[in-house]
C-alpha cells in the first residue's frame, strides 16, 4: 500500500531533470555534490593547519587579489565555527530557560542584559585571555575572534528558541505526554520542528551580523600590540589604510560573491526545507524553491548513504532512548544534574561578566607585558 503511493510521488517529473535520460543527470548531480564536498574538506584541512600552526600575531596581509579566496575561506571558517557554537549554546540555554522555572527567572533577564552589551567592549579582554590560554598556537588568537563573533550571534537565537519552546500549543504537548514520548522523541519530533522556522530566520540574521564583527576582530591594535589574522576583514582594512582602491574593489566583490553563494548554497535550501515546519492549516501557494535542495534530494548516492547509515543510526538511538524512558517508572522527576547544570551555567556567566568588567586592556597589559619581557 505504502510502496504504491511512494512510487507515485517519486515518478512525478519536474524541471530540467525530465529532459535528459535519468542516468546522466543523476551522475552529474552526484559529481557536483562530490566536488563541493571535496572543496569543503580541503578548506577545512587548510584552515586547521593554520590554526594549529605556530603563534603568529602579525600575519603579513597581502593585497594581491589572488590571495582573496584563501582569506575568504578563513573568514568563512571563523563565522561557521562561531555559528556552530551559537547553535549549541542556543539549544542548551533556551531549553533550560524554558523548562526550569527557577532558572528562567534569572536566565531571561540575563539574556536581555548580555544582548545590550556592545560586543566590541569585550574585544581586548577576550583576545588577551585566549592568547594566554594557547600561547604556542594560532588557535588562541583564532578562538578569541570566534568568541567575539559568537557573542554577536548568539543572543537573538537563544531568545527565539526559548520563546518557541514557550509557545508550543498546549494540546501538542499533551499529545506528547499522553503517548509517553521519550525526552529525545519530544525534542526531535515536537520541540525542534516547532522552533525550526524561528531558528532558521534568526540564524540568517546572526550570520549576517557576524560579517560585521569579523571586520573588527580580524585586525586590531591593543596598546603596543598589533594583532592580525588572515581574512577578508583584515584584507579590506589593509587595503583601505594603504589607499589601494583596486584591492578594495576586489575585496568588496569577493565579499558580495560570498554572500550570494551563502544564500544560494546554504540559506535558500534551508528555507525551502524548513517550509514543512510551518504551523499552517492549509498549504500555501507560493512555496520557496531551491535548486541546491533539489540536487540534494535527487542525489542517489546521498539517498543511499541516508538509507544505509543515517536512518538505521537514528532509528536505533530513538528506540534505545524510548525503551529506556519507558522502563523508568517515574519519568516526571527532574534529574539531579539538571540543577547543577543551572548552577554551573550561572557561575560561568557571573565569571564572564566580572571578567568583562575587570578585564580592561590596561590591567591585562600590565600583567602580561612584564612576563613577556622576562
Amino acid at each position, binding site marked *: *500500500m*505504502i510502496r504504491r*503511493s*511512494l512510487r507515485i*510521488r517519486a515518478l512525478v517529473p519536474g524541471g530540467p531533470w525530465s529532459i535528459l535520460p535519468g542516468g546522466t543527470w543523476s551522475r552529474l548531480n552526484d559529481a557536483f555534490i562530490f566536488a563541493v564536498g571535496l572543496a569543503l574538506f580541503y578548506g577545512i584541512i587548510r584552515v586547521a593547519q593554520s590554526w594549529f600552526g605556530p603563534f603568529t600575531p602579525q600575519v603579513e596581509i597581502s593585497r594581491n587579489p589572488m590571495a582573496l579566496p584563501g582569506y575568504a575561506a578563513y573568514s568563512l571558517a571563523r563565522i561557521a565555527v562561531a555559528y556552530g557554537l551559537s547553535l549549541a549554546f542556543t539549544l542548551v540555554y533556551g531549553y533550560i530557560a524554558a523548562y526550569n522555572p527557577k532558572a528562567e527567572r534569572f536566565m531571561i533577564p540575563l539574556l536581555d542584559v548580555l544582548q545590550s552589551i556592545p560586543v566590541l567592549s569585550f574585544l581586548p579582554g577576550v583576545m588577551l585571555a585566549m592568547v594566554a590560554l594557547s600561547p604556542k598556537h594560532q588557535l588562541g588568537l583564532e578562538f578569541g575572534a570566534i568568541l567575539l563573533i559568537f557573542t554577536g550571534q548568539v543572543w537573538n537565537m537563544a531568545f527565539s528558541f526559548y520563546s518557541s519552546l514557550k509557545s508550543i*500549543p498546549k*494540546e*501538542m504537548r*499533551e*499529545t506528547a*505526554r*499522553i*503517548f*509517553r*514520548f*521519550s525526552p529525545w*522523541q519530544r525534542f526531535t*519530533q*515536537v520541540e525542534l*520542528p516547532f522552533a*525550526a522556522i524561528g531558528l532558521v530566520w534568526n540564524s540568517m540574521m546572526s550570520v549576517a551580523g557576524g560579517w560585521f564583527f569579523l571586520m573588527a576582530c580580524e585586525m586590531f591594535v591593543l596598546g603596543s600590540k598589533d594583532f592580525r589574522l588572515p581574512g577578508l576583514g583584515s584584507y579590506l582594512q589593509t587595503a583601505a589604510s594603504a589607499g589601494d582602491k583596486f584591492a578594495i574593489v576586489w575585496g568588496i566583490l569577493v565579499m558580495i560573491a560570498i554572500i550570494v553563494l551563502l544564500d544560494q548554497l546554504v540559506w535558500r535550501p534551508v528555507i525551502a526545507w524548513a517550509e*514543512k*515546519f*510551518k*504551523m*499552517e*492549516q*492549509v*498549504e500555501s501557494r507560493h512555496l520557496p524553491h531551491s535548486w541546491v535542495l533539489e540536487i540534494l534530494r535527487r542525489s542517489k548516492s546521498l539517498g543511499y548513504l541516508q538509507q544505509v547509515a543515517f536512518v538505521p543510526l537514528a*532509528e536505533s538511538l*530513538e*528506540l534505545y532512548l*524510548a*525503551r529506556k524512558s*519507558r522502563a523508568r*517508572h*517515574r519519568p*516526571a522527576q527532574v534529574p539531579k544534574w539538571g540543577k547543577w547544570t543551572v548552577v554551573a551555567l550561572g557561575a560561568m556567566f557571573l565569571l564572564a561578566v566580572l571578567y568583562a568588567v575587570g578585564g580592561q586592556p590596561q590591567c591585562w597589559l600590565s600583567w602580561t607585558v612584564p612576563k613577556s619581557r622576562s
Partner: protein
Amino acid sequence: MLQAIIEARDITKFFTQPDGGRIEVIAPTDLAIYPSTIVALLGPSGSGKSTLLRMLSGLARPSAGEVFWHGQPLDGQIPNVGIVFQSFALFPWLTVLENVETPLKAAGLSAMERRKRALRMLDTVGLDGFETAYPKELSGGMKQRVGFARALVVEPEVLFMDEPFSSLDVLTAENLRSELLELWLSKKIPTRTIFLVTHNIEEAVLLADRIIVLGRNPGRVRADFQIVLPQPRDRKSHNFIELVDHIYKVLTQPEIEHVLHLQDSGAVTASRVKYQMLPHARPGSIAGLLELLADRGGRDDLYHLANDLSMEVDDLLPIVEGATLLGFARLLEGDTEITAEGSAFAETDILTRKVLFREAALKNVSILRQIDSVLRTKSDHTIQDEFFRDILDKYFSEDEVERQFETALHWGRYAEIFDYDSGSGRLFLTDNTTEASPTSQQSSE
C-alpha cells in the same frame, strides 16, 4: 458488577491565590469509568469538563483526592490511553503515516511493526491512500481521522475525546460520528471504553451509554444516568426528544446560590462566600430572547428555542440565565417563562428599555450595584477599573475575572449606569440628571 477501569475518589481541582485564598474549579468528585461503555461528559462552558478529563487521563494531577487505574493509584503516571482533541493537535511536519507512527515509536516498536500497525489503523479509519500526505493537505474531517488513528493505534484501554467534532462542519461531524459509532458497535476499534467531552446534548444522547452532566462554579456532577435506547438512535423518535429535553431541564434547573450581599460602602469582607456570577450574555441577546418569548405567548420549551435559533445549549444558556438573573424571565421545568417585568421590557421602545434594564440591573446584579454606589460616593464620580478587578479576583480565576468584568461593562454601559474609558481604564458615572431624555443625552456625550 464489572471492575472499574478508572476510579476517581474525591478528586478536586483548585487554584491558590497569592493571598492564600482558593478558587475551586472542580468540587470534590467521585467517578468510576467501566469497560464497554461510551461515557459522555456534558456541561456548560466553565464547568471544568476538560479539567476533569485531564485528571482522569493522568494529564493533570488533582489538587486533592486520587485517581485509580485498575485499583492502582495513578500517581502522576500516564496509563494506556489515547486522546483526540478538538484542535486535532497533529504534527504538521510529519506525514499522515508518520503522525500515526509517533505513539508506536514512543512505545519502542521496530520500524516494520510500526508501519504494519499504522497502515492497518489508517485502513480502519478510511485514510487508505493518504499515507504520504501532510496534515495541511487534508480537510478538517480527514485531519480528525488521523487524530483518531493516532489515538487508536496504541490500542488504548480508554479513548479520551475532548470535543472531537466541535471544530468540524455539521455534515462532516455527523458523518464522522456515525462512522465512529459503527466501528465501536462492530468492535473494530481496539478500545474498551470511550470517554467523550462535549457541550452538544444531541451528540451525547446519540452516542453515549451513560451521560454525566456537570454544573459550574465550581464544577460538580449534577446528574449521572444510563441511556438504554437501542443503537442506532433516531433523532426524531419520541424517546430521543424526551431525553434531550430532560437534559436541558437538568442543565437549566436553578442552582442555589449564596449571593453575597454587599454593604453600600462597597467594602468586601474577606470571607469566601460565593460571589454572584454573571452569565456572559449581551443585553441585545437578552432583549432578543424576551421578544421571541413574548411572541410565543410568554412561555416556551428550551429545546425548541435552541432549535429554532439554531443555537447550541452553550450559547443559549447564558442568555436565559441573564434574563432570569435580571428578573425578566424564570425557568419552570425546562421551560422559560417571561415575567411581567420581562413583558414590559419586550414591548417598549429602546429608551424605556434602558430605564427598565437599569432598574432591574441595580436591583438584581451585585457588581453593578456595587460599582454604582462606589461611583456615587466618590467626589469626582470616577474610579480605576482595577478596583473592581481586585474584588472579582478573590472569587474567580484570572480568565473568568476578565469575562466577568467585560460582561459587567456591557451591562452597565447599556443600562447607562456608568461609562468606561478603555484608554485610561477609568469608570465614571453617566450623567443621569436628565435621564432618558434623548436630546440632553447627546449633548452630554
